[in-house]
């Protein structure tokens, strides 16, 4: 008979018992969590045991304890644009030179050949995010956003030309902040940098500056035309413009006072950030 104090003998019982205990514990957990709990819960909710177990495992959707609800009918979306790697691929593969051709043919008349517009009511596009330009042109084309002149122009463009134009304007240098306009109001700076927690308004800069990590389609706001921003904020507030997915801008614009709209438009004419 082996000496019970022999380390080898000691070790064998350690191995056996610890393995048995550890595995028994985890199997007990599995038995309870994956079989017994869902079976009992399913029975009380009128769900068959197999379905309840599949739900507990995550193979079927829903809770093992509650009947699953049924979805509703499809409605009309506010924008047809879907951000996928494929769309980003189209944007990345766009040809700015072809875009320039289109710009010098059509767009330059209002938005300028290098993206600086001819009027305070028409947006600057120089250095704008390509994704933002793509989204708006796409929405004009699909009718999600309407504008007397833009709707017709966009309808004549196909997907690849939209991407080319977006790439061309995105590549134009943004102008330097104009020191004459830097005197922004305290209220505007606060809204841009802090937002207003009391009114559920996030800081504008959380989405509208480069690299903010916000929604992909948000335009970069800097050196933008004052009249254009003011008009858009008013159209969002009234619901006249509604191609912002889930009404993000409609909700915010509706909460802004008239003077805030003015201050913000002035702020972004300079583009402090």
């Amino acid at each position, binding site marked *: 008979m082996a000496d019970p104090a022999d*380390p*080898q003998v*000691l*070790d064998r019982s*350690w*191995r056996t018992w*610890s*393995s048995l205990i*550890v*595995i028994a*514990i*985890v*199997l*007990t*957990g*599995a038995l*309870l*969590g*994956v079989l017994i*709990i*869902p079976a009992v819960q399913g029975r009380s909710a009128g769900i068959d045991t197999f379905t309840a*177990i599949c*739900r*507990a*495992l*995550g*193979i079927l959707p829903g*809770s*093992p304890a509650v009947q699953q609800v049924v979805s509703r009918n499809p409605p009309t979306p506010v924008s047809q644009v879907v*951000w*996928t*790697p494929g769309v*980003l691929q189209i944007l990345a593969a766009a040809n700015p030179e072809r875009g320039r051709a289109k710009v010098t043919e059509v767009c330059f008349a209002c938005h300028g050949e290098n993206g600086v517009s001819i009027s305070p009511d028409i947006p600057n596009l120089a250095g704008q995010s390509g994704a933002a330009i793509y989204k708006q042109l796409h929405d004009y084309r699909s009718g999600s956003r309407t504008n007397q002149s833009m709707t017709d122009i966009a309808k004549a463009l196909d997907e690849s030309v939209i991407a080319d134009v977006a790439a061309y304007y995105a590549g134009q240098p943004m102008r330097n902040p104009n020191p004459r306009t830097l005197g922004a109001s305290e209220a505007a700076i*606060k809204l841009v*940098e*802090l*937002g207003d*927690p*009391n009114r559920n308004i996030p*800081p504008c*800069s*959380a989405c509208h500056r480069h*690299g*903010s*990590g*916000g*929604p*992909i389609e948000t335009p970069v706001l800097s050196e933008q035309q004052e009249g254009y921003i003011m008009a858009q904020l008013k159209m969002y507030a009234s619901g006249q413009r509604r191609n912002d997915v889930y009404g993000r801008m409609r909700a915010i614009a509706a909460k802004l006072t008239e003077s805030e709209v003015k201050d913000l438009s002035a702020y972004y004419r300079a583009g402090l950030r």
Partner: protein
Amino acid sequence: MRNAERLCLAHFWVAFAAFAAAAVLGAWQMWVRSPLGAHIGTPDDYYMSVTAHGVAMAYVLTTFFIMGFGYFVAVTSLDRPLPGKAWAWLGFVVAVIGVVMVVITIAAGKGSVLFTFYPPLTASPWFYIGLVLVVAASWVWCVLMLVAMAQWKRHNPGQPVPLAMFATVANAVMWLWTTAGVAVELLYQVIPAAFGLIQTIDVGLARTLFSWTLHAIVYFWLIPAYIAFYTMVPRAAGGRLYSDTMGRITFILFLIYSLPVGMHHLLMDPEHGSGTKFIQVFLTAFVSVPTLLTIFTITASLEIAGRLRGGRGLFGWIAALPWERPMVLATGLAFVMLGFGGFGGLINMAYGMNAMIHNTSWVTAHFHLIFGGSVVIMYFAIAYEIWPRLTGRAYVSLQPLRLQLWLWFVGMMVMTLPWHWLGLQGQWRRVANFNYDNPIIAGWGPLVDVSLVGGLVLLVSALLFVRNLAALHRGLPAAVPRPLYALAVHPPRQVPAALNGFGLWNVLVLVLMLLAYGFPLAQFVITPSPSAMVHRIQ
């Protein structure tokens, strides 16, 4: 010390410098979130600060401290020179380079994704690569610890590995397992996305991989505190360790049960079934076992010391303990904080009850008590204990050391007790400011102010800690101190191989991980969940 002093000191000073900076940021964050500091600083500043605070406390302080402490334990407990000291220095340099990269990206505002990342948000790739360098350096440390133990075993066949080294290697082994999850998440998903090589991320998979790391990493931070409990506290108190065997079992239980439980961080997530969550909740209950065993064993060890010092009666030994010694004082305070923090943890792990407090200040309070409280106060005690050995100098007085420990304890309690209550009211996490005009939130204001006071006390304590250590470098040279490590009542003469190495336990970890994480991870491989577009903060 065989010339490892400089290596240890270099690691410790990086750790504590990061700690002091993070303490300043933490206090600032509390101030701007309170009614007193409303509307100061922008959300951009705040998230920059939270990211820096989390990275410094959770990655820099811990990793550097644990590496430095591991080298110290390897040299002192094995009484042999450290193998591969050049590798250790190389690891240190790589880790410092990583930290510098991380600091630069955060300061440039290109790292504001907090220390827990949240893909599909992504920061600058250099933020993640810096962190990967820190982790890679810690892997060098893991290998050196394993080599040191193996060499010692070769020279001392059949001898039990000293408990301090056994525990350190348990931690190294656990860390190798732990980092696998976050390493795969970063290298396979997040870093390619940050570089723009991929445009989408399977978020469910990313969260599951991170959860693999998320619980065991806390035990990686915690084990040095437990090493101090088992191997330093009994001697500091003037007694003996009640049971060496229980120490070994405790560290083994940490190794096997801290890993297959990470999904309790995902209890409120929609990407896993309730059954697979239950399995890990079940196992989570068992991760409380090593802590509860430790509470008893260490209290018993302290009772030995107290009674040897003349304590009588059922509780008389408590008063007889040498509370004037920082190690003993820190242990007492750590146990109190561990009690409160553990209580919060029991609530967190309770499956359905997690819904009551998930992502509220309750959770913030819980991990500040457990980590910031009991673990970090033991880091202080360890530093105070070994600093004279590293510098060859003696403290003029222990008074400032005790004051610092008390301040840390009081500050932590004043800060976290209100947080528990606020969490139950639903005060949520990770916001730069609260709208105190809202009637519900206005009611929280006074308690937020109280917790701010706690935060300021913590800041004072943190700065005093650094001062105490720095002052010692200019202290009087002193004789080589006496041995550090406690003897057990029954020092082990021979132990079963199972309690002297990790082969068996690694196999059991593998089995547990397969059972606990096998299906939850496989479901994303069998049919990837619909992926989300990357959102870049940079």
